[in-house]
């Protein structure tokens, strides 16, 4: 099985790569269209802002390629947000693979933004990606923007209000938290993705 990490300039690429190594998979880091197209699994990691993230994919000529992929694709954190249609962050048009708009967390008393730390997951729709995940198991989140609940939400988390923690539409999947930093829960979810 070949797994590639799309090098879109995110700083968590190393961590995701090490997490996959711990699962016995050596993923290549690449921005080469042919290598991405040929891979069995494609992971789009990302830390940073939506605008620069999309700009980097455009510069690399990967926007249409990402949209045309048919193998399982996983967007992590910003990578998941880039799969959506649009992000309020920098008013950015994204890949449009999941019809949702990424919104900033509303400032509320006692609700600190960024949402940073471990929060519980609630399964909304059963999916092979969530195999062996129990409600209340926690994952590590770090983000200021989130995908609202929508028909593609597989699992939610709650921060002031419920939002999408895991999404999937067809072969495109997203995790808002960092599975590579979510201890055994994250390792299990990454393993589920690799088994899709």
């Amino acid at each position, binding site marked *: 099985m070949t797994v590639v990490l799309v090098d879109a300039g995110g700083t968590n690429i190393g*961590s995701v790569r090490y997490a996959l190594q711990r699962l016995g998979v050596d993923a290549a880091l690449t921005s080469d269209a042919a290598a991405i197209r040929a891979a069995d699994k494609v992971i789009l990691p990302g830390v940073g802002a939506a605008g620069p993230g999309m700009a980097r994919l455009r510069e690399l000529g990967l926007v249409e390629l990402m949209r045309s992929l048919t193998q399982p694709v996983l967007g992590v954190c910003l990578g998941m947000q880039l799969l959506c249609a649009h992000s309020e962050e920098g008013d950015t048009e994204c890949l449009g693979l999941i019809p949702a708009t990424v919104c900033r967390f509303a400032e509320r008393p006692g609700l600190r933004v960024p949402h*940073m730390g471990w929060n519980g997951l609630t399964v909304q729709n059963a999916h092979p990606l969530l195999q062996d995940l129990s409600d209340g198991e926690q994952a*590590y989140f770090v*983000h200021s923007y989130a995908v609202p609940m929508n028909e593609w939400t597989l699992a939610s988390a709650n921060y002031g209000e419920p939002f999408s923690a895991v999404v999937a539409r067809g072969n495109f999947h997203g995790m808002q938290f960092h599975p590579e*930093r979510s201890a055994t829960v994250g390792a299990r979810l990454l393993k589920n993705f690799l088994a899709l």
Partner: protein
Amino acid sequence: MLSRRIIPCLDVRDGQVVKGVRFRDHVAMGGIVDLALRYRDEGADELVFYDITASPEGRSVDRGWVEKVARVIDIPFCVAGGIRSVDDARAVLHAGADKVSVNSPALERPELVAELAAAFGVQCVVVGVDSLRDADGEWRVRQYTGDPSKTRALARRTLDWVAEAQRLGAGEIVLNCMGSDGVRQGYDLEQLGAVRALCRVPLIASGGAGTIEHFRDAFVEADVDGALAASVFHSGAIAIPELKRYLQGQGVAVRAC
């Protein structure tokens, strides 16, 4: 619900984890990767590594151990010490750290905080604040605390600096209350509460943990998002699973180990 975080802090010097009392007289506690793994297994929510001599010596953090930790650890970790530029931070983040914490260099040049936030997003940028109450009753910032011979007392008020750091783009504040550090008499709840009142980003308490009740007090009374401690964890005086069970019983949301 978002869990409150328990964060062991590992002060790093010459490839070893060390701990001093009131930021002085450091003694070796063990190897970096060994301790990181031990805390991960015990249920730590996050780790912070401070290269305590990098800033006073004017050098960047050594990336070798950052990468070693990133390979074996599957919880988030933050690296502090000697990060003076976007390039320094990029090297540490690319080596696998999740966040960088800036302290003395941000005091030298506050724009560093804005530059880091623009380059990596606020979620990567932690501002560490070493603070001590002066004789006139004001909390003020200290610089270069890793080396007592180089530590400087600044005129800058702690509350002003926290406000400015947030404005510049800090995604998290770690408040090291130096007056209570290493003496295990409890976190400085008064100071934490004062900072909490103006801190809209996550706030981490540091300095003073001695008993499990001290953690409860920081979470319940000062409403901090995380509590950082070193010696009580390194010495085994407090075990993280036991601490979390106690906190859960006290109604504090924590992640089960």
